């Protein structure tokens, strides 16, 4: 299922990386931040934190990478280059991520920055949309988005151009053992 998901997501120009565990994934994310932003870029990274950073001391992480901001407002997220959140599932047949964002902050980090890093537990990849729809609890989730690759347009001369209002890169960090 992961292979199909990777194939479909890559075809939509998402970048899919797989890791055995959380530690390796975190290393990748940290390196990615270092390579794409400068330490002096205040709040270049907005991070909507949940389980992925369980056990990681925030102070240590911030000391190591000061460009991270855990505070998220539309203005901050809009200026940030990278937004990081954990997504709640994926659909193999279409290469889509499922983002359930009850809190708007979680959505802002995938909607406003130039790059979206999505943390995805491998076990949450579902085969198809039908299965995904059955897993939706819309009565408790005011907002769910399927994200399939980067934001795109072809409105001028039908030329495909990436990164209009949303991210121009979607990096999917898939973790096997949580």
């Amino acid at each position, binding site marked *: 299922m992961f292979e199909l998901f990777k194939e479909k997501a890559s075809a939509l120009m998402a970048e899919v990386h797989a890791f055995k565990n959380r530690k390796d994934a975190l290393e990748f994310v940290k390196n990615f931040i270092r390579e794409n932003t400068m330490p002096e870029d205040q709040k270049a990274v907005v991070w909507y934190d949940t389980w992925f950073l369980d056990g990681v001391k925030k102070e240590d992480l911030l000391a190591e990478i000061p460009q991270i901001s855990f505070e998220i407002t539309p203005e901050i997220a809009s200026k940030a280059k990278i937004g990081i959140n954990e997504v709640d599932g994926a659909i193999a047949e279409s290469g889509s991520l499922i983002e359930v964002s009850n809190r708007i902050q979680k959505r802002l980090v995938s909607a406003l920055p130039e790059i979206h890093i999505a943390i995805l537990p491998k076990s949450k990849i579902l085969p198809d949309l039908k299965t995904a729809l059955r897993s939706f609890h819309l009565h408790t989730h*005011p907002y769910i988005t399927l994200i399939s690759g980067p934001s795109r347009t072809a409105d001028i001369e039908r030329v495909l151009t990436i990164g209009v209002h*949303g991210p121009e890169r979607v990096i999917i960090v898939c973790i096997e053992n949580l």
Partner: protein
Amino acid sequence: MLKEEIKKALENPVITKALTNFYEAYVVAREKAYTGLDFEKIRNEIVRVKSYAAENFDKLIKKFTEQATKRGAKVFYTKDPKEVINYILEVAKAHNVKTIVKSKSMATEEIHLNKHLQEAGIEVFETDLGEWIIQLAGQRPSHMVLPAIHLTRYEVSDIFTKKVDAVEPDIKKMVKFARKNLREKFLKADLGITGANIAVAETGSIVIFTNEGNARLVLTLPKVHIAVVGIEKLVDKLEDIDPIVKALPRNATAQPITTYVSFITGEREHWDGTKKEVHIILFDNGRSEMAKDPVFKEALQCIRCASCLNVCPVFRLISGLVFGRVYTGGIGTILTAWTEGLKATKDIQNLCIQCGNCVKICPGKINIPDLILEIRRRLAEEEGLPLKIRAIYSVVNNRRLFHTALRMASKLQAPFKQGAFIRHLPLAFSELTQERSLPAIAETPFRDRIKKIKQPEAKQKVAFFAGCLIDFAYPEIGEALVKLLNKAGIQVVFPQDQTCCGAPALYNGVMDVAANNMLQNLKALEQENPDFILSACPTCTLVLKKKGLLALRNQKVSSEVLAKAEKMAEKVVDTSYFINKLIKEGKLTFSKPLEEDFTYHDPCHLKRSLNIWQEPRESLQKAGLKLKEMFESDVCCGMGGSYSLKFPEISVKILERKLKNIQDTGVKLVCTDCPGCIMQIRGGADKKGLDFKVRHSLEILAERL
């Protein structure tokens, strides 16, 4: 007015080129996007889901309202466009709104919302890139899904530079420019207005598809969100959306899925912890009336993919700009009839050439040409016909008068005739022969010629229905048929009282004349009690077999007459199919199977209405010919019966493309099975001096016996 707009569009190379490039790529890409999926199954699902919704609007509106309200949204249902505007203005006033960001919503276009908001002193920004460009330019979208497809990068750069700020005509840079400029608007907006692609009754959710990600920002960043949703977007259950999610992006832009598919089910909290307000306006504007109409309820199966525009040979030449309405193209004509009233479609409904190319790809299985024909019929009924047209049909209505006129014309045409063609006509008729020669009317029509053909006695007897073109312009096609059938041991009878099949009247909505033609033919044909009734013109075949019955029903003939007509209809067969069957059964063989390359043009009615396309190819190959397919072999040649008289300028442009596709094969013989297509393609080739022959398959087959 319409004619001027058409002229402008046809003279604008950007429109034609952009749309044609898109359409050529689209057909292939769409096919690819459906790989591994069963399109028929998906669209049957859509029909089930959407027709259920249309039959149960009241119930679903109630259910949706209950569910969405329970989850904190305010739901407002109205039939009246004015009330939508008032509602939005009131919400805006209550929140002291100064700036609105909008993501694409056709429902708001329907009520010209932006104009009303601006008049109330509110700034409104469209945020879909194409819509924003169009808004800045003060234009109208040229396509439902691709609003700015008629503009080049240079024009877009000019618009941006004039209205916003300087930017060079580099697409990537202009996209970034839009991101930056609109981002400011998103952040400062007090109100976000969206449409919706689907509304799910059982959960009270709306579902929105975008590629750019603008709708997510429109509904997230401002404190108040209003969704304006046409009630045709309702479905009953969440699982019902599956086939729509699959078909909409694939049919709209040949994408497997749009980048974002958002499900909004009543939000209560804004990002800063304050209260968020969500309003959903369920908008009717004629839709529930449409659901009650036995014919037009079918149009509510539309999922707004605009693929009917994408494959329309007329639309790709003239674009949506010509329509001058919110909804354009085939489905747009139908929607306009209900949102703006039947009269609003008086001119634009004529633009449909009735080729049926849209029917095969419509994910809602809507028979768009048939519905447009119904509009035409109702208009003719309500408004009456122009005197000139009425006069023509009164002649067609009377066989003796009609045929006498044709015989007279064969004499009168002498000064204009050059061989088999009329290349120039004087004065008012000159436009007809400007780009294509017309066939000369035969000196001796088929109805006279057949009397002189000595046919062997045979057990099987078929009746031949010639139709006007074969009878009076191309009698040699009829002779070829007689030769083929006699060889197979079949005798051909020609009922002399047969007349026009009724297609011209029928395709112009003149049902009484069409029904009368049908009755005359019924009487003529049933006298002979033939085993089969053959026609070598697919349009005649279609009328005798199917469409004519509709005309009879429409004119409420007695059930006895209708039963007779149905019995006759069963016997009607297109020659392309019949001859192929004889070949397959070994009853027809070729002693002179001359090898020759040919290409085949599929007549619209033969392929899409009668589902015959392999048979003629196979027959010709059996007779020794080698097939070399042309590009878009089944795209209309531009003839469309009287269409070529109504819109010669469009007809000719479609023809030019067909001629080019034929030339590109390098083949010197084009076969087809429709005398109308022959008239069009042969006439175009003659005018341009092209060196390929255009023949009816029957003639080629008969030569090889």
